[in-house]
């Protein structure tokens, strides 16, 4: 089995699905000739041609709107937005249309598309290149939100997303693109959407994370009897798995790199406070970025939650 990084795993998933299904096509800024600014779509233009891999003008809202029209027409477009921070101008199309097309047409049309975008901090890039505003999108009924934490799940989740009958936002943690390699089977496999993964079993505290925070959480968890859940799908998130774990451990720490207020951690905490409060033996703690805009490179390490902060939170709930 090949050792691939996440860029390669995603590229492979795209290539395989494009080969299998001629409805799948890519569009976005620089996805063709350049192979994407992170090279995720490298080689696909050469292999599938200009009609399947479309280099577009610079217009995120237009790209998103066009993808909706393509999906309604019967294709399975994969629009790429160059960075999550540039989805904001496409928000109307995503929120008011992509996510609602099935409901607005009572099923006459649907919008099977996968919006791919690099996501998250830690790459020392300019402003708006390190946003982690996943919770904005988790609030949108009709839109699924997926975040892989490594090459293996990236391939399987992406294939599952590409076959989903409804729109999926696929957030690719930029910091992880080339950080780790894993064995990734050449053959296709699906990682089911909506299911969390136990990244590490344990019994005294549940730690929930996703994307690039998972790596830090696993480091932080060393030496603790902590159960680490890798959420993988953020909407709908696997509340069953979280509650099952909390029932066992009685303690919950949620870690995300987004700012605290109204982050997805809030929804997870609220769900547990609603459905499993009797099992809690300590407050639910959130380890997050502070409520400030994502800073530039020199401050980014102060912004992102670090291993030590996660350890402190684990200690706090254990000692409560």
């Amino acid at each position, binding site marked *: 089995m090949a050792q691939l990084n996440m860029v390669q795993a995603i590229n492979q998933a795209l290539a395989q699905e494009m080969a299998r299904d001629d409805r799948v*096509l890519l*569009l976005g800024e620089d996805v063709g000739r350049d192979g994407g600014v992170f090279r995720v779509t490298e080689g696909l233009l050469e292999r599938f041609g200009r*009609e*399947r891999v*479309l280099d*577009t*003008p610079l*217009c995120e*809202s*237009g790209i*998103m*709107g*066009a*993808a*909706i*029209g*393509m*999906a*309604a*027409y*019967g*294709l399975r*477009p994969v629009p790429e937005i160059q960075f999550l921070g540039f989805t904001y*101008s496409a928000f*109307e*199309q995503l929120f*008011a*249309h992509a996510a609602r*097309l*099935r*409901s*607005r*047409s*009572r*099923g*006459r*049309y*649907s919008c099977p598309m996968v919006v791919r975008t690099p996501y998250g901090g830690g790459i020392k890039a300019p402003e708006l290149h390190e946003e982690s505003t996943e919770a904005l999108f988790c609030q949108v*009924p*009709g839109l699924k939100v997926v975040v892989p934490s490594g090459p293996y799940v990236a391939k399987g989740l992406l294939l599952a997303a590409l076959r*989903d*009958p*409804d729109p999926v936002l696929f957030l690719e943690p930029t910091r992880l693109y080339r950080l780790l390699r894993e064995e990734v089977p050449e053959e296709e496999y699906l990682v089911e959407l*909506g299911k969390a993964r136990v990244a590490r079993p344990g019994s005294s505290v549940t730690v929930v994370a996703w994307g690039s925070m998972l790596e830090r959480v696993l480091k932080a968890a060393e030496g603790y009897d902590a159960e680490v859940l890798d959420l993988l799908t953020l*909407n*709908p998130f696997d*509340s*069953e798995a979280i509650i099952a774990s909390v029932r066992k451990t009685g303690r919950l720490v949620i870690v995300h790199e987004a700012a605290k207020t109204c982050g997805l951690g809030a929804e997870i905490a609220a769900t547990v406070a609603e459905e499993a409060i009797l099992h809690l033996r300590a407050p639910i703690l959130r380890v997050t970025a502070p409520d400030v805009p994502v800073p530039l490179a020199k401050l980014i390490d102060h912004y992102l939650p670090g291993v030590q902060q996660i350890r402190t939170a684990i200690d706090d709930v254990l000692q409560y």
Partner: protein
Amino acid sequence: MPEVLLADFQVKRLEVLNEKGEADPELLPELSDAQIWRLYELMLLARIFDERAVALQREGRIGTYPPIRGQEAAQVGSAFALTKQDWLFPSFREMGAHLTLGYPIPQLLQYWGGDERSQKVPVGLNIFPFCVAVGSQIPQAAGAALAARYRRDPVAIVTYFGDGATSKGDFHEAMNLAGVFNLPLVFICQNNQWAISIPLKGQTASASLAQKAVAYGFEGVQVDGNDVFAVYRATGQAVAKARSGAGPTFIECLTYRMADHTTADDAGRYRSGEEVAFWAARDPILRLERFLERRGLWSPQKREEAAAQAAALVDAGVAEMEALPPPAATELFDEILATLTPRQAGQRKVR
């Protein structure tokens, strides 16, 4: 070396039928008398549907409704040039186009009655749902055009929008995509000269909307939007061009919104009675009647008959719409996703 001329652009206006009902024989589209009479019937149907919808709203039998009065030629004339294979991305004020394509009347009324279920466009019509977020349907039409091109389907994709929509980024991004990818796309702008209370000159400083196409490197043309033949001719050419792979066209139909913006609006607050009267005298239906009369095809009695037929259709539609049972609460969850999320499924259970 000094100031050199880089390019020269001419923007044209198409007129076929004048106020007196005289048609330019060179430009008159090839339509049989029966087809022309059909155009007339559809325009009358649109007018009568519209009057009834306004009345139903006043009686509280449907919700807020945006009248199309005055825009019948622009809507019927353009939609008449389409086939059912073509795709239509409407805004919310083209009921005349819907009627022309055979959209069921009860379903149109049901939509303005605020019933979700009406949004399922009948199979066989490639029409997108009404779009209230002004302009946002336009890039979607560009995407469908990309898809049609990819599939080598010889169809035209048509999108309707108003003068106000041309100010929005969506219009621009879609026009630009159409130019870059040379899409089989026809942009039909219903320039009814008002966007709620904003008159055209408060919307743009450009002298025409047609000239906006210059920015995108493809053809833009203005037509007299109260002239059903001009609209039909321009649309017919544009859809043929689209289907043949020769690229996009922008058509400005210069017309007038004779009624309020919606039944919730009072146009008297912001425009003069004289202006409205000026345009009422230029009613597109009147103009076609004059043409038909010259051909000996029209009489007040024939109008009565046609109007009675249209009214009967609308009556039947109203009755059918009103016979529908109200939607159940669980309808909230229908067609949200192919498979509801566990949370949605749980929420559905307790309704």
